[in-house]
């Protein structure tokens, strides 16, 4: 499983040395102490995993190394020399490169322009660009990453995984010896993750030191040589990665406490079908989809990006009309014209990209929560009853275990997990029959995840159905009563009451490996 396993037995490499070291670094943002005397040491030729829940300060530490933030106190050393990293250029000159969590690419610019953006050979504004030389270096780097993209293609035309690789190419083109990766796999599918891990292996062999920031525990075992955990702005523990380091140990490192693992209760008696889809075809990718969702059932559809699951979601929530096939809800034909119509028919939707498509960033928690059900609070004159709205908000926020201090504060003052809970509260308003969710727990911490899973199952037990499109197979296996695997616009197979044992089969389903599977059985 470990793609880098061979590395441990490889020919002797130069003795690792400490290349990057932070001692007692502190940083405050307003009233928030993001870093509280954090210390860490990173060695060359290895992958140092920095674990932490959201808000633990790991991204802040990474950004201090990259020159995006300046520390309030503490010292940074690069190869034994005390340094001050005031801006991105200084970081680059010290050989530090960062692969940002939110991609730092300019979408309209070409691959080539992006890779050298800010790192041109000359510095004066009216100097001419040395495009030929840049193209040559660019090709070398892309070759090393095994990335075959046209240099002049605008970055916006690339799929997300390739953007991520361009982002890495950008760092490599700057001759980085220390590479910081901030949650690089958050938007990747499993197959793309494997490709990234392979690249990390190559970099490691070249003696590059990698600081890998994540909250995915599985990745520690997969690629890590060393692991540090951050809690509340401090690095609390550091240790080498050995087989003895179990996932449970990591969880306690990560949270500083024991976390109650979520386990799915068996589905109740077979439920009556609520939503049935037959021979569904859509322009954007469904070729022949048939599935059913029962009343009070959590159903997952799992497949790689582009397999048609996004398209299925779009059809169901009314963003796109299907070209042929039948959808029935509650025995009646279902054909939503737009999301508001879909909602009226009982179909609620929690979109994938929380920042872009979910929250109203400048508006209060209350307004974000009650966006869809304002009619519940309207009075005879058409005015809104603020008091009834507050009352519902207090009740729902409480039920959803949202941690907040005032519902009038902007939603952006909440952590990602709490924001997602608020959006969940928005989606369940007005008694929907089915809730379609895309990647419901991306970028939120373990505690909030477990809370959301529990909430979903409570609602399931009250008869609300869920259709989950998640890129996280383990999550899908954990929370769904039934799973459909999907490949190339078609449903491959159905798994009732799935368990971890179904993982391998589902993975081969979604890659379309029919023959391969036939050979095994």
């Amino acid at each position, binding site marked *: 499983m470990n793609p880098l396993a061979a590395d441990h037995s490889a020919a002797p490499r130069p003795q690792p040395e400490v290349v990057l070291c932070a001692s007692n670094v502190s940083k405050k943002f307003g009233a928030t102490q993001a870093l509280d005397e954090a210390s860490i040491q990173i060695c060359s030729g290895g992958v140092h995993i920095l674990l932490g829940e959201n808000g633990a300060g790991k991204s802040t530490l990474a950004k201090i190394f990259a020159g995006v933030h300046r520390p309030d106190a503490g010292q940074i050393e690069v190869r034994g020399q005390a340094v001050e990293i005031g801006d991105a250029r200084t970081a680059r000159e010290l050989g530090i490169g960062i692969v940002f969590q939110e991609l730092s690419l300019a*979408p309209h610019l070409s691959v080539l322009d992006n890779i050298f953006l800010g*790192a041109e050979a000359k510095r004066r504004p*009216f100097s001419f660009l040395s495009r030929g030389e840049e193209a040559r270096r660019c090709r070398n780097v892309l070759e090393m990453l095994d990335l075959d993209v046209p240099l002049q*293609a605008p970055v916006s035309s690339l799929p997300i995984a390739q953007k991520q690789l361009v982002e890495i190419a950008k760092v490599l083109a700057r001759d980085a010896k220390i590479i910081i990766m901030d949650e690089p796999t958050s938007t990747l599918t499993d197959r793309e993750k494997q490709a990234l891990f392979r690249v990390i292996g190559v970099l490691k062999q070249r003696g590059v030191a990698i600081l890998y920031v994540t909250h995915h525990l599985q990745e520690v075992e997969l690629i890590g040589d060393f692991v540090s955990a951050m809690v509340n702005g401090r690095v609390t523990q550091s240790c080498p990665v050995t087989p003895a380091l179990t996932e449970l140990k990591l969880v306690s490192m990560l949270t500083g406490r024991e976390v109650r693992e979520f386990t799915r209760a068996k589905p109740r008696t077979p439920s009556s079908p609520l939503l049935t889809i037959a021979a569904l075809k859509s322009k954007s990718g469904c070729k022949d989809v048939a599935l059913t969702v029962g009343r009070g059932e959590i159903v997952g559809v799992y497949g790689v990006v582009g397999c048609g699951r996004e398209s299925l979601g779009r059809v169901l929530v009314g963003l796109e009309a299907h070209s042929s096939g039948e959808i029935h809800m509650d025995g009646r034909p279902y054909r939503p014209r737009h999301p508001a119509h879909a909602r009226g028919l009982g179909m609620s939707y929690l979109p994938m990209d929380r920042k872009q498509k979910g929250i109203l960033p400048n508006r209060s928690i209350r307004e974000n929560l009650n966006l869809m059900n304002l009619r519940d609070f309207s009075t005879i004159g058409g005015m809104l009853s603020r008091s009834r709205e507050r009352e519902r908000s207090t009740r729902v926020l409480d039920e959803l275990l949202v941690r907040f201090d005032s519902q009038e504060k902007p939603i952006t003052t909440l952590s990602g997990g709490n924001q997602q809970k608020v959006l969940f509260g928005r989606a369940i308003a007005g008694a929907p029959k089915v809730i379609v969710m895309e990647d419901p727990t991306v970028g939120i911490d373990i505690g909030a995840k477990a809370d959301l899973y529990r909430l979903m199952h409570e609602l399931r037990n009250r008869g609300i159905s869920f259709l989950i499109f998640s890129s996280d197979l383990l999550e899908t296996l954990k929370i769904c009563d039934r799973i459909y695997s999907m490949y190339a616009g078609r449903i491959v197979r159905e798994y009732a009451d799935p368990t971890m044992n179904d993982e391998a089969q589902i993975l081969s389903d979604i890659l379309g490996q029919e023959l391969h599977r036939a050979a095994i059985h």
Partner: protein
Amino acid sequence: MFQGAKSGGTLIRLASFDMQKLVLPGIIVLIAVVSGMIEPRYWTAQNLVNLGRQISPLLILAAGQSLTVISGGLDLSVAAVLALSGICGVVVMNDFGMTAGIITMLLTGIAFGTFNGAIIARFKVSPFIATLGTLSIARGLALMIAGGLPIYKMPEAFIDIFGSGAVFGLPAGVIFALGTVIVFSVILRYTILGRYVYAIGSNTDAAFNSGVNVRAYTVLVYALSGLTAGVAAVVLTSYVAAAQPLAAQGLELQALAAVVVGGVALTGGQGSMLNVFYGVVILGMLSNSLTMIGVSSFMQTLAIGVVIVAAVILDQLRRSAN
């Protein structure tokens, strides 16, 4: 252009790519042919020279405007700065000579542009509001210095060389305009500044994180926009032989319209100088042709509005088709 020209879809892409390249020149040819058929005088050298003179100030301002718009902003103050530069320049010219006056015009433009850029970059004010404010400041200063009246007194040489001078039949104003467009085009395509302008407009945070000094480059962009106001002041003041405090009113919006007709997205990050040039020519030809054909100026205003709206809709359709 595309290095990965392997797939079968590339041909189609190249075809539609070329089609897009031909749309704006096509419209220009269409306007020229139709106008020529209705009014034969259209094709006289005299009219073409007139057309060139008429659009020169607009072309110069549009070059600067392209830079600000591609960088994700805009500059509403250019026309007012043009008027102020003209007034200041002529006042200096009458006391210290023509060269000092011209330098004053250019420096006034650069100074105001730098002021705009500094406000926008330092205080993160939206360019719309910031330049709306400086528009009024510049116009106010121009009226105060000139005492509200046009200044007609200026060295004869200034009018002779820059106003009515010509090289091989090309009026000086047209030469200045074409020169500005070519210089800005080279800046956008081949220099570090050009790459940064696109990058800042495309994604400011990405540019900043990559090590681009976003603040300094934003100031530079507006300074260059201001410089175009100075250059346009030289051209316009010498051509009309007067420095008017209320000169060029509304020209900033025409420049913006030309940039949009030229397919530059107001959201920034994309666009080309050549297309902006076409945009200016289209708007200029339209107003010139309608005048020659005898359409009333009221009707002209309306017609140009329709063209702008249609251009934006077409552009949006093209974008979503991609």
